[in-house]
């Protein structure tokens, strides 16, 4: 009896080690594919730079972002790298601080869209039939709203604020996740190991979360990465329209809008926040495309 147990534990230990080994090999292989892509590496570097700015903003900004520190509308100089805005606040500090709002907006709205979207896709794909019909009909209707229109309707109802922008942008991307996941589930659920799991009595929820989801995760990761960039783009657009972050927040879209009236006199107020948005969004797009190639070269997203 003891000997059998001993054998079993030993066996499982060996198995565990070889599994970890396989996972590491897998990771190294994916990383090699990713790092060979020059664009993706450029994106990754920009992204890491912005993440560090976000984390250490308090200690690296030269001035407090919400305080008047100099005369209004000062052109960029050695002292104030990006100049000052119409209230005499330091633009450089404000742009650096803006990374906090924008990155949070990108990540949180992606979670708001990806988690329920994935769940609905799993349910629709796994159960099929009527459930699938109802879920997909409603999601198709959501897709009939072009671009940011659905987000606009949600904002109209909830009222303008940065939290509501996250909710609005998240919900409006939900159907894309559901469609993507449903597609993967339809292929995966026909495989033999799912049949096996069902035969040994696994409950549907366990099959969906432990057997199907891990094999459908790659496209979700890619879509999410690309969506973070997209969410930042849409979110800052809503703030630009006055429907998102409200003054005096150091938000890039809002800052760009503030400089709009002063464009002919103080170009720097609009220019630098816009450049910040462009660089972050481009970084996410580059990394997302790199991941797409690394995780599955044949995969199509969106």
């Amino acid at each position, binding site marked *: 009896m003891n000997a059998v147990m001993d054998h079993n534990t030993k066996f499982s230990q060996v198995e565990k080690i070889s599994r970890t080994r396989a996972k590491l090999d897998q990771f190294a292989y994916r990383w090699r594919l990713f790092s060979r892509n020059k*664009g993706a590496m450029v994106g990754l570097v920009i992204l890491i730079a912005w993440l560090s700015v976000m984390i250490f903003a308090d200690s690296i900004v030269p001035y407090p972002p919400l305080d008047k520190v100099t005369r209004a509308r000062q052109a960029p100089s050695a002292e104030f790298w990006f100049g000052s805005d119409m209230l005499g606040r330091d633009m450089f500090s404000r742009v650096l601080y803006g990374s906090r709002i924008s990155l949070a907006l990108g990540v949180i709205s992606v979670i708001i869209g990806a988690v329920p979207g994935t769940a609905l896709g799993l349910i629709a794909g796994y159960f099929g039939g009527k459930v699938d019909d109802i879920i997909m*009909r*409603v999601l*198709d*209707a*959501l897709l*009939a*709203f*072009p*671009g*940011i*229109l659905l987000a*606009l*309707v*949600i*904002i*109209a*109802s*909830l*009222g*303008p604020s940065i939290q509501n922008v996250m909710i609005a942008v998240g919900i409006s991307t939900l159907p894309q996740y559901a469609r993507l996941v449903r597609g993967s589930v339809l292929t995966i659920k026909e495989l033999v190991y799912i049949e096996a799991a069902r035969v040994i009595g696994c409950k549907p929820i366990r099959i969906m979360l432990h057997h199907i989801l891990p094999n459908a995760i790659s496209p979700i990761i890619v879509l999410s990465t690309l969506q973070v*960039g997209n969410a930042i*783009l849409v979110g*800052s*657009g809503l703030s*630009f*329209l*006055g*429907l998102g972050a409200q003054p005096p927040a150091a938000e890039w*879209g809002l800052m*760009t*809008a503030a*400089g*709009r009236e002063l*464009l*002919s006199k103080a*170009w720097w107020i*609009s*220019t630098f*926040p*816009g*450049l910040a*948005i*462009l660089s972050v*969004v*481009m970084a996410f*797009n*580059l990394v997302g495309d790199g991941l797409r190639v690394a995780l599955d070269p044949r995969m199509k997203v969106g």
Partner: protein
Amino acid sequence: MRQYIFNRLLQMIPVLFLVSIIIFFIMHALPGDPAMLMLAGAEGGAVTPERIAELRAQMGLDDPLHIQYFRFITGAVRGDLGTSIRLRTPVTQLIAERFSSTLQLSLVGLGFSITFGLILGILAALKQNSWFDMISMVFSYIGVSMPIFWLGLLLILIFCFQLNWFEPAGGTGFKSLILPGITLGLSSAGIVSRLTRSSLIEVLNEDYIRTARGKGLKEIGVILHHALQNSMIPVVTMIGLQFGSMLAGAVVTETVFSRPGLGRLIVNAILWKDYPLVQGSVLVLALIYLLVNLLVDISYAWLDPRIHYN
């Protein structure tokens, strides 16, 4: 073909019905009392409980939700989308007034994106992996990552204030549409160029292209008559989708260039809490988007004779 179009139009009805339910549900079931928001927005300060109750009764907000929806949808079917609270004008009239401006803008944007995107994509495909291909890829990454509002401001800064080529806002005629059109179309131009490139490269590797070349056709003839048309099918789908994003992107572009269009109307309606106006104009935009996608599907048959609609 006629049967197919008829069926597709018929299928649009349930989708539009669902769309209207979603708009209505979001606008009415989520927190926020329209009567109160409206009073706060329109009259500023004078928000008394009596006034709210009066307005709620007047707007029929005390009726059960399904009765309110029934009123909305029966009106919509008859072409009556209610009356704007702020402007005290029928919503359909407001939409009709603004629509042509937005349509012109979207068409110019689409025209720019197709012309520029196709030329760039075709050249990139023919000179695969050259420096030109590289530049067109960088361009397309910038295009899709660029905030529309910032691009618009940059163009105004350069072409209106530095070079004095255009008026920064207002103006009429085609000239006033150039900068807004480029602003609206740049990101699609990037997407169209990438898709054209990959699609054309795929088609150029097909056997019938080798045959065409083999029978001694000039390269330009092979590309124009044989390759291009077949490579356009995915591109046309994408252009249909892009038209939708143009309609939505017009919201931002019209604000940047101070153009009085449908997008600007929606943004103002949201800021004014003008519920009937938001509901009505979003419903109309969704309808237009669905119709454009139908047109795209029909155009497949023209592009690819192998496709039959039965």
